[in-house]
């Protein structure tokens, strides 16, 4: 299936360049676009078949997905609004991946970041909005950062597997959030949906002028670019990649691996915590269980689809933001359950992982050195 899809993409889109030097130089980059692209096409085809079995027309499905994600200015804005937290939660998986760690607890760091940011805003009621906003950013990032540092520290000092511990911490974070919003931090006025008090309209971060897209998108873009520079253009990033490639070599050349792990985990968690802060300060205005909307889990998929590259995360997050933005339209027009977005995400994930087997095996790219 995947191979066929790969071939059809080759035939349709990317024509092999005549200059052999071109392939040698850019063969690897072409692979990094071609193979995930083919996996995406394959996943969409399988999902179309699944929908056809369900009795709906797959062509309608593709049309509404495109229309709901990128068809109008309105849907573009919806897509970009959803892409913002996805960029940040994807960084929570992609940064530790440079060290060879699989962290899947972005959702937990998001929730803790949201709680910390809300607490900061509520504590600073009456201060100038800019002060409150900066405090929320700092609190959200520290809260989320410490949450993932916990996983990193357990891995480094106790040998606890970070994948499992970070996921367990998601459930613990959710329990803490539910406990606080139904108990100590509850706004007595919130009856049906237990929530904290509102952070105040003046303290919301608002939209980018001329759009309905909130400033969180800019936060996400800046974070992704900063992460890219950190990993590929600084000594710190180089050290992290060395340690990720061969931990023994890293120790021999005198790198302090423990410090690297803790720092990277803190940065990863703080970006997911920032996503939580944005969801509070730009969308919800308060903390409640609505925040556990699954951005943390979709972020894992974004990171894997982008092959853990911070810059590639941006377009992939927009793509998956688009898929989730089109969910509402699929529900209304085609009568599909809201979980169809989850199913498609799952299928994409499976295809992307299976496509890992294709690297270095595509015929016309084989000649490269």
């Amino acid at each position, binding site marked *: 299936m995947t191979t066929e899809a790969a071939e059809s993409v080759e035939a349709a889109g990317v024509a092999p360049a005549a200059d052999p030097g071109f392939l040698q130089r850019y063969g690897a980059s072409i692979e990094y676009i071609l193979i995930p692209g083919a996996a995406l096409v394959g996943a969409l085809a399988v999902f179309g078949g699944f929908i056809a079995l369900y009795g709906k027309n797959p062509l309608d499905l593709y049309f509404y997905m495109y229309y709901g994600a990128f068809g109008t200015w309105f849907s573009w804005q919806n897509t970009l609004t959803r892409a913002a937290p996805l960029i940040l939660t994807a960084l929570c998986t992609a940064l530790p991946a440079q060290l060879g760690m*699989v962290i*899947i607890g972005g959702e937990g760091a998001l929730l803790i970041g949201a709680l910390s940011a809300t607490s900061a805003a509520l504590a600073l009621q009456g201060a100038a909005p800019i002060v409150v906003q900066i405090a929320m950013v700092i609190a959200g990032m520290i809260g989320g950062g410490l949450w993932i540092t916990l996983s990193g520290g*357990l891995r*480094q*000092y*106790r*040998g*606890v*597997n970070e*994948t*499992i*511990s970070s*996921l*367990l*911490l*998601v*459930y*613990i974070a*959710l*329990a*803490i959030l*539910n*406990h606080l919003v*139904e*108990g100590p931090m509850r706004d007595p006025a919130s009856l049906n949906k237990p929530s904290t008090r509102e952070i105040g309209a003046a303290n919301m971060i608002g939209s980018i002028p001329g759009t309905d897209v909130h400033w969180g998108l800019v936060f996400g873009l800046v974070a992704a670019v900063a992460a890219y520079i950190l990993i590929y253009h600084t000594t710190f990033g180089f050290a992290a990649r060395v340690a990720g490639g061969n931990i023994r070599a890293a120790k021999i050349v005198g790198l302090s691996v423990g410090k690297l792990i803790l720092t990277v985990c803190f940065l990863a968690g703080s970006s997911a915590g920032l996503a939580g802060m944005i969801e509070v300060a730009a969308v919800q205005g308060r903390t409640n269980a609505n925040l556990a909307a699954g951005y943390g*889990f979709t972020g*894992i*998929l974004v990171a*894997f689809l982008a092959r853990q590259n911070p810059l590639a995360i941006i377009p992939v997050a927009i793509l998956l933001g688009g898929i989730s933005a089109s969910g509402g339209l699929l529900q209304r027009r085609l009568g599909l*359950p*809201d*979980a*169809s*977005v*989850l*199913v*498609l*995400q*799952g*299928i994409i*994930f*499976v295809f*992307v*992982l*299976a496509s*890992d*087997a294709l*690297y270095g095996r595509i015929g016309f790219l084989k000649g490269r050195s």
Partner: protein
Amino acid sequence: MADASLGLWTVPLAVFGGAIRVSTPFLFVSLGECITERSGRINLGLEGTLVMGAMSAYGISYLSDSPWLGVLAAGITGALFGALHAGICSLPRVNDIAVGIALMLLGTGLAFFLGKPLIEPTAARLPAIDFGWWNDIPQLRAALRINVLFLIGVAIAPLLYWAFRTTRWGLLIRTAGESADAARAMGHSVLLIRLRATMVGGFLAGIGGSFLSLFYPGSWNEGLSSGQGITAVALVIFARWDPMLCLWASLAFGGAAALGPALQSVGITSGYHLFNAAPYILTLAIMIITCSPKRTLTGAPAELSITR
């Protein structure tokens, strides 16, 4: 009648009853994962398998009026998910942990999608055996209404312990888990052994899911499983890949999970959510205590990616 006289004794009693009721899914998932991990592969997707199992069991039980057919359907669904996991993992350069995460998302998504029409109707539920006929205390009788699946799970644990030690089948799985090269040298296909081990693991996890929807809590909804699957996977590490220890650990976790509802029943409601997080906190605490950065865990299959 005995409600007042029992007083605070209701809490340990409810925890005891809960340990039996709540532990069953933990038990099935951890025994299944134990088989898979012993063959040298880790399947984190059992969380998704559990939810899929719960959904398909409820659906089939509703359509056929036979809960046991539902249990079978859940097992088959789980085995198919196991086959999918093993199939993708057998491709070169594919990481089994990542595939597990993908199947976790796919399984939950698919179950929510297909299970949408099942939220309203009531399906036939699994029967319970009344072991409490000899007394009149309602709480004790409730605690002693035990499901057959629990007894089956309890029976599987020693059976598995014995099979790993003495049967040819158990030896093959352990060989594949300890040294893929050795298994290959003996002329066996490691991929095939792992495929079978993952399918059997998925089968058991699916049955664990059927318990959730057909006995306790005994209905289908999207909040049915919140991490029981992944907790059970962690539990296997704590149990040192020993089926008998999986049994005791499952009972302990079931008791921990029953603590929140038990305290709520005697009127202690503050911190309800925190008590509900007890199994996760317990898992984490146990992993912190039992793991060590300096040595690999005793009993760990050498081929397992999670311990290397």
